[in-house]
């Protein structure tokens, strides 16, 4: 197992290097000058050049890349062009904020979607199935900002139960965290539940049509046993893959939800950096996101043998 993990991690290094180079090149292909954004319409072209030189943007591109790579190898991801702050601590802080919203939403979505999807598949064509599918379709059709805004208007403005925006870390106390987090978590959980329900339902219908399910029924096994022992286990493989992708996507930023609720998370951090052409921040954040995906994919791969004994780690 450890060998496998180390092998996979080592294997991801060339990918990271390539992706970092690609990100660097793509960013430099984008028009827009960070120095221009810093000085605005206040300064002259000479001042603009001075700021560019100060930021190291007048250096040849290969040198800029190597300088950035050097900072990465020293583990600090460079300094933000906009705020003059080291990128890594800010990035980790922002990631922590996002994780405190995303992880509960993810767990809630998974807990709701798995039973609902399997139930809908089991009762395919009946009223319960139609209701679940209808709810899921409706939820998927609603943009997250709209769901969020409805929650804000109802629970924040009309009822006055919850703070309409902002974030309190869990270290400030569970209650104050929950007050601030419940609406963004609900917004994310609703959307992700709807996506997962549809996926799990489709997988479960497929599994329920397999011969071994008929065989299990013919053997006289109870429906509950069939669902839990045979159907759920076979549905889990594609579900876990999807869960991994969803988790990676959520953890790398939920920009719309963060913007709406004023949450200083990773998504809004990246978007602000893109608007500001803050190259070290964009590059550092994207590198971090790639690492995150690699780690989640690895974790999913390690989970497969536990779910499906036919899968073996090589």
């Amino acid at each position: 197992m450890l060998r496998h993990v180390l092998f996979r991690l080592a294997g991801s290094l060339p990918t990271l290097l390539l992706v970092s180079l690609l990100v660097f090149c793509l960013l430099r292909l984008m028009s827009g000058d960070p120095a221009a954004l810093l000085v605005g319409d206040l300064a002259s072209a000479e001042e603009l050049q001075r700021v560019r030189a100060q930021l190291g943007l007048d250096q040849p591109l290969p040198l800029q890349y190597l300088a950035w790579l050097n900072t990465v190898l020293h583990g600090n991801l460079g300094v933000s062009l906009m705020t003059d702050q080291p990128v890594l601590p800010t990035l980790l802080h922002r990631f922590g904020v996002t994780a405190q919203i995303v992880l509960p939403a993810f767990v809630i979505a998974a807990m709701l979607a798995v039973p609902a999807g399997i139930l809908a598949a089991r009762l395919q064509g009946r009223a319960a199935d139609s209701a679940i599918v209808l709810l899921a379709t409706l939820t998927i059709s609603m943009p997250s900002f709209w769901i969020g805004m409805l929650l804000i208007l109802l629970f924040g403005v009309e009822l006055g139960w919850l703070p309409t925006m902002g974030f309190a870390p869990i270290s400030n106390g569970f209650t104050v965290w929950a007050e601030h987090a419940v609406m963004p978590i609900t917004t994310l959980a609703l959307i992700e539940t709807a996506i997962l329900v549809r996926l799990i339902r489709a997988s479960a219908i497929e599994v329920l049509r397999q011969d071994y399910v008929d065989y299990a029924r013919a053997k006289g096994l109870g429906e509950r046993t069939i669902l839990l022992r045979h159907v759920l286990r076979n549905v889990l493989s594609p579900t876990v893959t999807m869960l991994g992708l969803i988790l990676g996507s959520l953890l790398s930023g939920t920009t719309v939800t963060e913007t709406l609720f004023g949450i200083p998370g990773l998504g809004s951090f990246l978007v602000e950096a893109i608007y500001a052409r803050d190259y070290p921040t964009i590059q550092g954040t994207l590198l971090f996101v790639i690492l995150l995906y690699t780690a989640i994919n690895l974790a999913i791969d390690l989970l497969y043998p536990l779910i499906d004994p036919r899968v073996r780690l090589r």
Partner: protein
Amino acid sequence: MAEAKFAVAAILAALLCTSAPAKAAPDEIRVAINSDILSTNPGVLRDGNTDTVLYHVVEALVAYREDLSVGPLLAESVELLEDGRLYRFRLRAGLRFHNGAPVTAREVKWSWDRMLDPATGFRCREFYDGRGANALKIEAIEIFDERTVQFRLNQPSALFLDRMANVQCQTAILHPDSVAADRSWREPVGTGPYRVREWRRGESILLERFADYVARDEPMDGLTGAKIAAVDKLRFVVAPDRMSAKASLYAGQIDLVFAMPLNAVAELAQRERNRGDVHIHRADTLDWTVLLLQSNDKLLADPRMRRAIAHAVSSDLVAEISTFGLARGNSSAVQRSSRFHTAVHDGWPKFDPDEARRLAIEAGYRGDVLTIQANRRFAYMFDNAVAIQALLTAAGFNVRIEVFDWATQLSNFFAGKFQLSSFGYSARSHPALLYGNFTGDKKLRATFQWSDPVAMELLQQVERAGDDATMQSLLDQLHTRMREQVPLIGLYNDPVVDLTRATLHGYRSWALGRPRLWGVTKD
């Protein structure tokens, strides 16, 4: 599953056990800002929100009054000597920095030396080092006595104080404790009515009342006068979405949202009328929206073509469409709220599509595509572009809009890479400073739009204008010349609409478009 049930139960229990979320407390005013501040280093790492927060914390020798003239702030008096080449500032008695140290001429000189040091990165250094408009340069900063400091200039300047009062530059007088031993920035140890207590990056910045603040005797006036901190704390909360911020204000969790989207004004007015729990505050700002015309372009190099476009574009109509009727057109760089805006400045090629067509044909226009650059970051620039496109199309021009993100459009502006550009100049307190932004030799700076030698000479005379009458005459001449040459087309001065809770008293929007929270009380 049991743990999951417990977690859900715990969340619900926690929510049920908590009372309604805390409203903003009476001793704290909460203001929504749409992005975090960039730093606490005034005039160095800055943007509009940074300036707004910091002018509650730091002060300069002089500041803008409500009527946009410049008045003393830390200074007790300002003397002009040696034919306007020497400015002598006498400091008010009893002034203290946030660390308790007295404010003396030494700190004034230290602060200015730091600003003029290239290593500091002060954004407005070129206003004072001979590289800026009219090559104005501070030749020496001298300590006259404990409370008096004087600035020796290379030439008489009527605009020196206006530059010194510039809000974007914030020529803050700071205590040397503001920087570390290696001269890196620590925190602002200034003289303002509030000081920084806590900055939670990405979330909020909390200012607390400075108990030893020495207010001026005159009533509050612009950014000067009596700046009395009426509440103990100001909290600027980062709320990127204006509509969420508005909902927070309705819920009583925010007290002020400034610069609301103009398309929300009708709804806000209805709320103000029906419920009376909010107030709308409106003002015309000094921000000036324009259509830039690239005179290096083959077509637009011909003044007849530029005049043709001016005849086709009605600034009043564009203002009406883009601001929902909140602003009037203004083709002059002299802002509507300026005391120098006279009837002369309302003169402009009149809206006449037939004349536009005639002039365009005369200038050799044969239906070539005219491209307007715009962006959606600043919605008004896009809206202006759409309105202009419609007006130009109606006059027979072939126009398309190219939408970029702001970073790209701004880079194009600096490089002069545009044909037409829907743009906006940020607030300049004095019209001459705005003219200085776009008047000059284009071969030297692509950002200059008007390379007319006569205009440049007039602008130099403005720098030396000794009185308002001379200034008025020069500004009138500048506009008259601009009307003939149409180097750009002025559209309107941006209106600003701020929204407050009805529990906030004494708040006023004003021409600089950014909130001032001293003198504001809360029930």
